């Protein structure tokens, strides 16, 4: 799976996700990537999110929207919300994976509970951050 979330100069957020799904899948199985609210979500008043991981659990957890909802209704920061969903809620459901997200202020989160996640971020100053493992 690949995904991207962005904030433009007009303050607009967007998110997208694209995937081949799960290897050896049967029965036209579909994961979270094309499910709005699970694999992808964006809302200008909160954040934009793209998910990657074990899709069935991201669907059950409505993961991408859940992060936005925690920000909107409980006032959590993006990082607090992403940590709560990926490190606490998702493992309780039995799922694993991660998200990347950016909020309306330009704050970034790259949260995952697996051994690694291919990831990168870049801010308005051009500062680049690339990672793979959970170092």
């Amino acid at each position, binding site marked *: 799976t*690949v995904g991207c979330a962005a904030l433009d*100069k007009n303050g607009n957020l967007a998110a997208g996700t*694209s995937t081949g799904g799960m290897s050896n899948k049967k029965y036209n199985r579909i994961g979270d990537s094309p499910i709005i609210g699970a694999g992808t979500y*964006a809302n200008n008043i909160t954040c934009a999110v793209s998910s990657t991981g074990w899709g069935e659990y991201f669907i059950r957890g409505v993961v991408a929207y859940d992060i936005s909802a925690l920000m909107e209704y409980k006032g959590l920061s993006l990082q607090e919300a992403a940590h709560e969903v990926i490190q606490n809620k998702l493992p309780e459901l039995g799922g694993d994976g991660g998200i990347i997200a950016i909020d309306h202020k330009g704050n970034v989160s790259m949260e995952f509970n697996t051994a690694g*996640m291919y990831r990168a971020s870049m801010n308005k100053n051009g500062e680049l951050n690339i990672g793979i493992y959970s170092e």
Partner: protein
Amino acid sequence: QPNFGIVIHGGAGTILKENMSDSLEQAYKAKLEEAIRTGHEILANGGTALEAVQRTINVMEDSPLFNSARGAVFTNKGKNELDASIMDGSTLNAGAVAGVTNVKNPINLAYEVMVNSDHVLLSGKGAEQFAEEQGLEIVDPEYFYTERRFKAMERARDRDKTENRTAFYDPLTKDEKFG
């Protein structure tokens, strides 16, 4: 200067350093950098977040390194079925596609669903028909073939013959989930 920024992922899972050669690691990092610089340049020049998201994902879709489009994993029947979605935070409009087999860049089709249809999610043959109607690039499904992903599917299919699995066995430990 107005604030802007971009963040990407290329999948999560059992990514262990001991299983990664230095050259492959550098290849991943180089492609991640190429992708994010593509989107960053669009944003720096005043482009929209939606355009940045699409063009950035296109770079990763066109790379065989990642499980999307050209590097997609195979189904049990030896096919590639592609899914994608996109959402506009300014309008809460969204578009998505599932199970397409011949659209070169599925994220572009998700965008077309969002802006040029009354629907949110199209699937299978209907989604492919819509892609043609919107003038998106259609490719032979062979375009998505990579030997690495095909062999991974064959290994998984072989295990199917010897293991008694439930619907919710852990794909993380079975080499069948690539983010």
